[in-house]
């Protein structure tokens, strides 16, 4: 389950990867910059090296050129006879060890009219100075047509020849410095001949070849034609030009480079060396000959240290990232561990076990805080649930008590119908549906003597337990006072006075109280602020209009009036509380007295229970499931048919 700790994996991935990227970028930049710095240093180093080499070569070449020039000027300024000429040449070679051969080659008939060609030449041979006549040495190809003669002759200036092998003198590589000299004539300057000084290039090429730059770097020397004079590729020396190599390798860029070199340019370039490795090359001309000296620095070796350093840094970085990863794993695990324990604990808590042991954390960080808060939360939850349990228990107890109260209240109201089976003169039916467990509405009926039935309906101004208790008092008072006084107005006045006496809670009750003479159907009634009852007889259904009267308990000393009516046989008096007419549907529309009147007109009249149930169901239909805030109480009393017998 390696991905269970997904936070650890994320931590490791993000931190390690970012670190690796940052490190790689840093390393790359470092490598690049090192290269740039190295290249800068290299450029000045290679320039210094090349310039010092050029300087050494140039010094030698300049000395030889100076000597040659000296002879030429000397021959121009004063006439020399043969002996003087030979002494001059000989001394020049004897005094200048770098000169391997020197001579003066005259134009045809310029030395004297007798000799066509004349070219005395001294040269070193086995440590001695020997003498030769060039006009005799080159019979097949007379000296005036050799490059060393012809080029300065045509150009009229000092020239260094292209290096060549002198087969006569042990096949050594030589270059000749040639200086033309003139005679002033009437028609202007006239060429008399060419003074030549040879130098052996062996020491020069050896000097260049001896340059070792690191392990594989080297110096090279090219002639004006691009001919290779000194180079590690020994076979190419005096055989290949830079351009023939370029052609052989089919490399136009090499040819372009060669052209820059032979043009006498100076440059520092990165290129693939002729030997085949990537290198830096600095090339610069040797001014007097126009040859090119190049120093080649192998890039691989130059960068070896940088590369090594980079490798070391890479290894270190790798190890560092590895360590970092381990550290991240450690820290992440340390952070995750209490979280994981917490998760386990919360699973338990979620399952309802609040007594599970929460992991102890010593850390003061966010996780520690979280664990601590969790601990507090658990305690709070525990307390809350405890309270809730207690409250629920209390509520349940109250509920059950209320249920008992409901039963008691219900049992207080006469509920056995027909209540007086031995009195066929009338019929009576009543129902009360309390809005809460216990209600404030009540009804009652009882005989106060043999022929007089007292019946009443009442509505306590409040609901619930207080109303129920008040109702108990009111009902008891009404019954005892009813039986004692026997007149509705007196009953109400008396009960009102008693209730109003200690009415600290300001509770009231409306009452409609009536006494029926069951023999005649005469009804005496008094109203204490209750809804007017309805009369259902042969004339139809109508509201009575009793005097309103004040509610009981409001004001002591209130006077009530007894009114009279007579219930015809089969006439019904219908009493109700406002819970009926004020029953609300979900749209808060009241049931209303109009609708009740209509309902009663259509209700069955023979059976009072059916009539009341009809009204109840009509109210329920109107309410359409909306909870009712008031008790719904109805009472109906009906005189029987007149007995014929």
């Amino acid at each position: 389950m390696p991905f269970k700790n997904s936070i650890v994996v994320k931590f490791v991935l993000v931190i390690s990867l970012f670190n690796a990227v940052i490190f790689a970028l840093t390393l790359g930049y470092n490598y690049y910059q090192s290269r740039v710095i190295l290249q800068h240093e290299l450029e000045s180093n290679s320039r210094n090296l090349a310039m010092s080499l050029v300087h050494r070569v140039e010094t030698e070449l300049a000395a030889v050129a100076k000597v040659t020039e000296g002879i030429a000027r000397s021959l121009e300024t004063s006439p020399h006879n043969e002996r003087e000429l030979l002494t001059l040449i000989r001394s020049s070679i004897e005094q200048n060890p770098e000169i391997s051969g020197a001579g003066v080659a005259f134009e045809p008939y310029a030395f004297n009219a007798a000799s066509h060609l004349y070219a005395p030449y001294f040269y070193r041979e086995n440590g001695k100075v020997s003498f030769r006549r060039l006009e005799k040495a080159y019979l097949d190809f007379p000296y005036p047509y050799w490059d060393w003669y012809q080029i300065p002759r045509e150009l009229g200036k000092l020239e260094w020849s292209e290096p060549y092998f002198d087969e006569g003198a042990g096949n050594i590589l030589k270059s000749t410095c040639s200086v033309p000299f003139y005679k002033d004539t009437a028609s202007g300057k006239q060429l008399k001949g060419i003074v030549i000084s040879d130098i052996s290039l062996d020491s020069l090429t050896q000097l260049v070849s001896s340059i070792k730059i690191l392990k594989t770097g080297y110096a090279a020397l090219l002639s004006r034609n691009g001919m290779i004079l000194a180079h590690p590729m020994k076979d190419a020396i005096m055989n290949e030009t830079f351009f023939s190599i370029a052609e052989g390798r089919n490399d136009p860029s090499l040819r372009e480079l060669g052209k820059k070199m032979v043009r006498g340019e100076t440059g520092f370039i990165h290129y693939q060396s002729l030997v085949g490795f990537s290198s830096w090359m600095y090339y610069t001309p040797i001014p007097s000959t126009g040859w090119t000296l190049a120093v080649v620095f192998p890039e691989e070796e130059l960068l070896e240290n940088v590369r090594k350093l980079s490798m070391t840094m890479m290894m270190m970085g790798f190890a560092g990232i590895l360590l970092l990863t381990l550290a991240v794993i450690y820290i992440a695990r340390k952070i995750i561990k209490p979280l994981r324990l917490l998760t386990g604990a919360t699973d338990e808590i979620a399952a309802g076990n609040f007594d599970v042991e929460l992991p102890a954390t010593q850390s003061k960080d966010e996780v520690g805080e979280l664990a601590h808060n969790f601990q507090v939360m658990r305690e709070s939850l525990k307390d809350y649930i405890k309270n809730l349990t207690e409250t629920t228990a209390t509520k349940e107890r109250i509920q059950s008590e209320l249920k008992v109260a409901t039963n008691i209240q219900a049992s207080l109201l006469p509920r056995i119908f027909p209540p007086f089976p031995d009195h066929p003169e009338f019929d009576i039916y009543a129902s009360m549906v309390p809005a809460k467990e216990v209600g404030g509405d009540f009804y009652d009926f009882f005989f106060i003597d043999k022929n007089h039935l007292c019946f009443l309906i009442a509505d306590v101004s409040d609901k619930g337990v207080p109303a129920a208790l008040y109702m108990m008092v009111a009902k008891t008072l009404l019954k005892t006072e009813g039986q004692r006084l026997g007149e509705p107005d007196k009953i109400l006045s008396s009960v009102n006075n008693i209730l109003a006496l200690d009415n600290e809670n300001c509770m009231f009750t409306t009452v409609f109280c009536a006494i029926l003479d069951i023999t005649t159907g005469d009804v005496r009634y008094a109203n204490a602020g209750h809804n007017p009852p309805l009369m259902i007889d042969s004339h139809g259904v109508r509201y009575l209009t009793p005097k309103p009267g004040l509610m009981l308990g409001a004001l002591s000393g209130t006077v009530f009036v007894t009114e009279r009516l007579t219930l015809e046989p089969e006439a019904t008096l219908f009493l109700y509380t406002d819970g009926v007419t004020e029953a609300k549907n979900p749209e808060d529309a009241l049931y209303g007295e109009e609708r009740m009147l209509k309902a009663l007109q259509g209700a069955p009249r023979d059976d009072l229970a059916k009539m009341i149930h009809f009204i109840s169901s009509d109210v329920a239909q109107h309410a359409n499931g909306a909870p009712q805030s008031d008790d719904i109480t109805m009472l109906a009393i009906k005189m029987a048919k007149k007995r014929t017998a």
Partner: protein
Amino acid sequence: MIWYPNQTRRQSHLLISWIFVLLLAGFLLPRLVAAGTLLKSATLMPLWSPQAQFAGYYVALEKGIYARYGIDLKILRAGPGHSPADALQKGTTDFAVLWLTTALQHRTAGTHLVNLAQINQRSSMMLISRKTSGIQSIGDMEGKKVGLWEGDVSIPPRAIFARNRIKVREVRQSHSVNLFLRGGIDVTSAMWYNEYHTIINSGIDPEELNVMFLRDQGMNFLEDGIYTMNKTLQKDPTLAAAFVDASLEGWRYAFDHPDETLDIVIKYMREAHLPANRVQQKWMLDRMRDLMMPVRPTGKMGVLAEQDYDAVALVMQENGLIRKYPAYRDFVWRADAVQK
């Protein structure tokens, strides 16, 4: 099976004798060949020191083609100071490579030499100037310094100048191109297969040069051909025929195996202590192939066409280089004539 010791001994005796004879033959034969008892000795002097211009001869020698044709050939040293025409005349060489112009001059001067084969079918000679000098045509060379080789080689350019009626400042040029490279002359004579490439490989691009082939100026002065003295030919026509056939076969082999050929040529160059530049030699060999291809559909490798011969001879006569010239049939000896 019965064992017969005597019979076995007799058989082995016979075998040993045979081996002895074979060994003797194998040992002696090359000696005899080397001593020339079986092969005819002959010498060849090329026009110049060893280079791919003569690859066919060196390859034929090296690959034993001459030996196969019954010739024990020796290629003589050539180059500066060696004149193949003189060597022919003096009899120091049996065969020589000569330019047609040279051969004609010598022939009209009384040296009875004969063209055995014409190797180059078109002229490779050119006049090169730098574009910066503004020389666009032969006419532009008026008064300019023009490098010309000494000797017969300068005949074609001189003929062109004469025909165009211009006067140039002739400067005798050596075998190096340095005089031209340094600016000592405005125009240089060059061979396509050699000096032209040397100039290119001294760092001057073809685009920087104006190049005029003499053959494009109506001067198809055919160069390398194989010549021998008439008396040598009369003495042993089969040898001459064999030499020509072997040489041409050598050339064909050279073109079919350029790398091997270059190895052989460079080997001879090194032996002669010459700068050996493979790229240069490859260029030369490739150009020789171009130059040896017959110009006309009816042409044949190694055969001097009569109209080419007449054209060259006529120009030379017009320019006063020769007074009259021998008839084509007299000058050219056809190798296939031997078979007749």
